[in-house]
């Protein structure tokens, strides 16, 4: 009796446990349903952002990226029947074709038919991005038969900011990625079919002949995948890819007399920096932490999983390895594309793998929704903002900046040196004279002799030189050799700033003075610092932009006086002088921006610690160095010194109120309508015009932020006579 009762109780408990289990499983399905919808909404919004970004970029007429111009130029030359892989670059054009020819070949017919334009190249890249998204979904579906997981994989790829950003560039990467994924799709779908093997091998070779770095991840994955299916086929794939690839390489090399190897291999072996690699990887970790953790988890635990791992695992490993090349100088986000594709595949595979575990799958979907949110945020803040600023650098719908630059190129009487915007030359059917970054790297490696270019610069053979300046990054230091920059600074003078590009024209010493000008002739004061990149007016403050990194361009006292540095002035000092224009009166000079952009490390010399008051200084006394600091809470700006001349306060002390107003002035944004700039309105405490003190030419539009070349009044008037 007792035993029967116990048995009855045990069964009852078991029934209850079973019912609870069923209830939990049912709720899990409901929770999974909710998580699915949340993820779908996130992915749909991400896809909409991708589409809007693509629309904005594809219809844009001008270059978006440094690398677009050279590819259109190569397509022009190829369409004209010229060799794009020259061995000898001792004479112009000093250009390098970094990549194998497939993308340029696909572009050449469009250039031939419709003339140079960025539209066909951007459409090719965009189509290939969409194709890659579809192929990722196809691979996941072929391996799992899970439509939802496949869709997640494909759409997640389109949410990644690196993909969004690169999908609209006239660059080789998207075509290469689509071809390599097509090769993998064929193998995933028909691993044992002979025709599939041949087609896949040809697609993989095509990917390598679009971009050489695609010779690692996809072929490795294809090999490992086939190895688990039929080892003989794996060996056949290696033979096919290797054979066709090598034959093509030899043929191209013979045809170009070694030029193919020189351009595609030698010219790509650039300096590698661990710091650079770390910087990029930190960025990746910030953008895609969940995908990276899932990728690591998959690599670690995936070994136990039978089907998709032999394809996805090696692909992920190979993609990680090719990503490491981002440590090379000049590398950028395109090195992440293969890794993004691999991580999207892994995400899809994990979603598919947990089909029978609703709670786990729901948790995974929520994680992926969070990841999509992070990706979207990054896309909007970084890629979309970047594109918008490129398309409309002044935030003005009527912006004519690029038309002005195009006009400069169109009307130039001779060859033009340009970097970021060399695509403008291609648009005007002007062959490129130089690809500055590529030849600079060759010069640094001792492979290319830059003497002829230096001589041409010194002979003023170029009517215009366009050097782009990125805020907070001295990209021109990577793109031009130090010798070229010295020659340009000495022989040319900055005359305009258009779309963050400084327009240099040949220096006329009579008008512009020598390059090492320390003071304008006849001026009461010396210049406070160097200004090779020109000067910027802002409400009678003069911002001197020197050439160099932070903490390298010295700042000096303009005249004898008494120096003050407030207790909380980490980036600035002020000096009280006898006013040379109003004898008997005093005047203050202000020197700001002498601190690092990010962490506000002060570049003011230690002779003047915070809290200094009335320390005597002599004319030419070293005060500190130019920095990128602008103000608390603001983005760093170019290496600069902010200089102003101020009336003293009523008691003769430094006019703190004027400093506050000056520092609160919007920069580099647009002043709200109706708000007057300092010096424009009746503000008595506003800064004085520094021109009479320094002997420089004033801004014709006083009170507005205006970029001007730094010129001396005396030299201009000499020329006028």
């Amino acid at each position, binding site marked *: 009796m007792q035993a029967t009762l116990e048995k009855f109780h045990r069964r009852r408990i078991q029934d209850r446990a079973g019912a609870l289990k069923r209830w939990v499983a049912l709720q899990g399905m409901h929770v999974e349903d*909710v998580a699915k919808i949340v993820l779908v909404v996130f992915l749909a*919004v991400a896809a909409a*952002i991708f589409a809007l970004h693509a629309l*904005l970029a594809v219809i844009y007429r001008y270059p978006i990226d440094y690398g677009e111009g050279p590819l259109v130029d190569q397509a022009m030359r190829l369409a004209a029947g010229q060799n794009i892989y020259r061995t000898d670059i001792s004479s112009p054009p000093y250009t390098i074709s970094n990549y194998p020819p497939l993308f340029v070949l696909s572009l050449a017919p469009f250039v031939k038919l419709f003339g140079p334009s960025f539209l066909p190249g951007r459409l090719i890249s965009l189509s290939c991005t969409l194709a890659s998204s579809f192929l990722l979904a196809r691979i996941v579906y072929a391996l799992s038969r899970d439509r939802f997981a496949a869709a997640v994989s494909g759409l997640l790829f389109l949410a990644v900011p690196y993909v969004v950003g690169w999908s609209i560039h006239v660059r080789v990467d998207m075509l290469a990625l689509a071809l390599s994924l097509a090769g993998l799709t064929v193998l995933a779908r028909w691993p044992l079919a002979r025709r599939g093997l041949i087609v896949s091998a040809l697609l993989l070779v095509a990917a390598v002949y679009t971009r050489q770095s695609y010779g690692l991840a996809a072929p490795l994955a294809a090999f490992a995948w086939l190895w688990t299916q039929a080892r003989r086929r794996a060996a056949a794939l290696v033979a096919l890819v290797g054979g066709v690839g090598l034959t093509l390489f030899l043929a191209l090399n013979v045809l170009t007399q070694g030029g193919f190897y020189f351009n595609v291999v030698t010219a790509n072996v650039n300096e590698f920096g661990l710091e650079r690699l770390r910087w990029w990887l930190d960025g990746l970790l910030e953008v895609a932490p969940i995908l990276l953790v899932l990728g690591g988890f998959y690599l670690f635990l995936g070994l136990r999983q039978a089907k998709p791992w032999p394809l996805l695992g090696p692909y992920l490993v190979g993609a990680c390895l090719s990503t490491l090349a981002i440590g090379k100088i000049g590398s950028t986000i395109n090195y992440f594309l293969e890794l993004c594709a691999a991580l999207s595949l892994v995400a899809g595979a994990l979603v598919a793998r947990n089909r029978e575990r609703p709670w786990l799958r729901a948790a995974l979907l929520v994680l992926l929704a969070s990841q999509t949110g992070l990706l979207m945020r990054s896309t*909007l803040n970084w890629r*979309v903002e970047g594109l918008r600023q490129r398309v409309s650098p002044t935030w*003005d719908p009527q912006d004519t900046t690029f038309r002005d630059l195009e006009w400069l190129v169109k009307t130039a009487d001779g060859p033009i040196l340009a970097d970021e915007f060399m695509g403008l030359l291609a648009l005007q059917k002007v062959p490129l004279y130089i690809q500055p970054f590529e030849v600079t790297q060759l010069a640094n490696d001792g492979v290319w002799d830059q003497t002829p270019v230096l001589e041409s610069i010194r002979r003023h053979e170029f009517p215009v030189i366009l050097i782009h300046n990125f805020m907070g990054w001295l990209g021109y230091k990577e793109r031009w050799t130090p010798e070229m920059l010295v020659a340009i600074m000495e022989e040319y003078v900055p005359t305009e700033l258009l779309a963050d590009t400084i327009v240099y024209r040949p220096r006329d010493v009579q008008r512009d003075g020598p390059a090492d000008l320390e003071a304008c002739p006849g001026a009461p004061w010396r210049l406070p610092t160097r200004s090779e990149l020109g000067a910027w007016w802002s409400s009678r403050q003069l911002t001197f932009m020197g050439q160099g990194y932070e903490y390298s361009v010295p700042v000096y006292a303009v005249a004898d006086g008494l120096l003050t540095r407030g207790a909380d002035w980490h980036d600035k000092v002020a000096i009280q002088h006898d006013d040379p224009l109003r004898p008997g009166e005093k005047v203050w000079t202000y020197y700001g921006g002498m601190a690092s952009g990010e962490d506000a490390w002060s570049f003011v010399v230690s002779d003047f610690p915070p809290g200094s008051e009335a320390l005597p200084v002599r004319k030419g006394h070293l005060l500190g160095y130019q920095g990128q600091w602008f103000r608390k809470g603001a983005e760093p700006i170019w290496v600069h010194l902010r200089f102003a001349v101020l009336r003293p306060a009523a008691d003769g002390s430094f006019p703190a109120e004027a400093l506050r107003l000056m520092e609160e002035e919007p920069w580099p*944004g647009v002043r709200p309508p109706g708000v007057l700039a300092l010096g424009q309105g009746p503000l008595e405490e506003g800064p004085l015009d520094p021109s009479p003190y320094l002997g420089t030419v004033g801004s014709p539009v006083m009170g507005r932020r205006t970029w001007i070349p730094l010129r001396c009044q005396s030299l201009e008037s000499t020329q006028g006579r």
Partner: protein
Amino acid sequence: MAEDKPSARGWGLRLLAIALWAGTSALGFVEILVVRAIVLRIFVHFAGAGSYWGGHALGVVTAIIMGIACVGVIIAGGEYHVKHFGKPESWQLFRRTIAVELAVLLLGWYI
């Protein structure tokens, strides 16, 4: 007749359904503002701060569309729940409505 009278569980489920309908409806109204904010934020990223009137117009249009959608969801959803009360379809619709509203709220946090 007495058999038609709902049990205590039935009343509970009715109350739950009414509470869910009222809650999702109220949240729907809140989400008019959330969606408008999301759309405007995305717009500003693409068009820049200078496009004041474009943004203003977009905000108004979004609010109108969302308002219509919200009223539609409340009325049509209410009708549906009355018609299918107690059936799985009704609870599924609640689940999906909550999921979409949750997604919109989360989106507002990310964007």
